[in-house]
């Protein structure tokens, strides 16, 4: 049987969006699937169904050669027997146990000696040395997150499930731990599913991304593909960022970055230091379109290009430009008329440096 995860579930709640989710993707040693979507879309319910913590009324969940759920054959494998690692949004550390106790908790099947060795190994891996005897309430948010991850990983699960792993942290820690988490996931070589509503996390962490909205999976693909080529307006709306292109930082000083995107220079302002390889992300509503060259502007990016497509959606229009790389802008319908935006028209895209977001990138 092909190594894949296949899920097809229906779960209805009274007064909430029913879940009708279908996902199927090949799993190798380290595939990270992102479940992406707005809050309340049903991402966590899908994840919890994979963990065995929610019971869909109907459906099947298969992971490689194991069937975890098949309502037709009345197969319902308990969370205890799925051999998964699960981390909830608030980490749910055991308050009465020490850090070492939390990590050792799932290792009851090992002998005392093996358990000690495994705990020690995992504590080293997650840089928790020196905190063995601390109680969860004495730890910082970032430390709690590492303990929760260490606890989930210690019993060598088949699949790691992380529900909004970074959302409980403050912003600076979140950006740092995002890269840290990716390094760890690759080092562990453990297939994972990560729920997030943050597109930067999706880009950094994911090999594959499934966009979930209204309880349904709308599109599955690599994060960059899904962001830059949403299948329909619903996906575009759910992901919320329209332009994602690969670039290289060629110059950086005092929070200013100059990035080479396909030979075109783009300026960005970011608080964090970034390595040379980045994703350049721009929201469609942050791009203004001017006709022809412009004299002077405070905006640091004035990119000359041509219109390749115009799609009118009510009062707004989605204009696709080519400026050496594809760029999607949202403008009002009246601007389309005033500027006579038609395919082939030469224009300048004006973008403030602060509206250009960078996400570090390691090619998968």
């Amino acid at each position: 049987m092909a190594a894949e995860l296949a899920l097809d579930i229906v779960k209805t709640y009274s007064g909430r969006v029913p879940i009708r989710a279908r996902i199927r993707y090949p799993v190798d040693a380290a595939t990270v699937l992102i479940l992406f979507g707005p809050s309340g879309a049903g991402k966590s319910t899908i994840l919890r169904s994979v963990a065995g913590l929610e019971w869909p009324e109907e459906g099947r969940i298969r992971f490689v050669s194991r069937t975890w759920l098949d309502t037709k054959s009345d197969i319902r494998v308990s969370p205890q027997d799925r051999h998964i690692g699960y981390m909830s949004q608030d980490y749910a550390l055991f308050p009465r146990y020490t850090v070492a106790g939390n990590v050792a908790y799932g290792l009851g099947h090992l002998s005392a000696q093996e358990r000690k060795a495994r705990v020690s190994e995992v504590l080293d891996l997650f840089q928790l040395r020196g905190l063995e005897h601390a109680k969860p309430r004495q730890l910082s948010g970032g430390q709690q997150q590492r303990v929760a991850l260490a606890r989930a990983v210690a019993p060598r699960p088949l699949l790691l499930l992380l529900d909004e792993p970074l959302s409980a942290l403050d912003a600076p820690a979140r950006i740092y731990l995002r890269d840290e988490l990716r390094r760890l996931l690759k080092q562990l070589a453990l297939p994972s599913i990560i729920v997030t509503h943050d597109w930067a996390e999706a880009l950094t962490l994911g090999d594959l991304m499934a966009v979930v909205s209204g309880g349904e999976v709308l599109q599955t693909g690599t994060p960059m593909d899904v962001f830059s080529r949403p299948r329909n307006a619903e996906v575009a709306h759910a992901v919320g960022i329209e332009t994602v292109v690969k670039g290289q930082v060629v110059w950086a000083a005092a929070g200013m970055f100059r990035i080479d995107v396909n030979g075109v220079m783009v300026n960005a302002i970011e608080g964090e230091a970034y390595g040379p390889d980045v994703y350049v992300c721009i929201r469609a509503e942050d791009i203004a379109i001017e006709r022809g060259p412009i004299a002077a502007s405070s905006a640091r990016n004035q990119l000359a290009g041509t219109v390749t497509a115009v799609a009118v959606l009510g009062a707004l229009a989605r204009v696709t430009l080519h400026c050496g790389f594809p760029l999607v802008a949202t403008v009002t319908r009246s601007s389309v008329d005033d500027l006579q935006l038609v395919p082939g028209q030469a224009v300048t895209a004006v973008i403030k440096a602060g509206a250009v977001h960078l996400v570090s990138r390691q090619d998968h």
Partner: protein
Amino acid sequence: MNWIAIWVTVKLAGLTALILLGIGLPIAYWLSFSRWRWKFIIESVIALPLVLPPTVLGFYILIAIGPHSPFGRLYTDLVGHPLPFTFEGLLLGSVLYSLPFAVQPFVAAFDQVDRRVIEASWTLGVSKFQTFFKLVVPLSTAGLVTGVVLSFAHTMGEFGVVLMIGGNLEGSTRTVSIDIYDEVQALNYTGAAETALFLFVVSYAVLLLVYAVNRNVWAAWPQN
């Protein structure tokens, strides 16, 4: 002071609290964790002794365990004597009468335990049963102590149920509260005052303990 009545009362209250710990834990676990739609029916049955006059409860228990009921006949056949007006009958009545005093604090304590913590334990391969003793019980100690202590104290002071199904037999079913009643009927106010003071002090001490446990006044006590 009637030391025999005090001994009977303490024995009755202690055994009642112990039995309620045993049967109250699974009932409370089910009430706290079940998502069954009709759960409220069971909840109201358990709360019934809180509002029912003890004589009414005692009356039904008396009928249920009496020689004309199937249960009463079975008991008489097995043990050789009927259940009413014995210590065992009184114990059964006390357990039913104090059930909500144990179960409700247990449920409240279990309700406070973070479900995510319990789920984390399950996903780590630990069974529901083990999770209960490794995580739920240690995180509910204050509620469990409250339930046991309240059911003990409530049994200490019960009157109506005892009178209905226990009668008033020295050494087996005469409890402190009945003793006080007897003393007053006999116009022996001095004896009644002593025993009443005893019950008063014990009850107050018990409540002090319950409130102290819930306030975590002793820093040495493990905190949640």
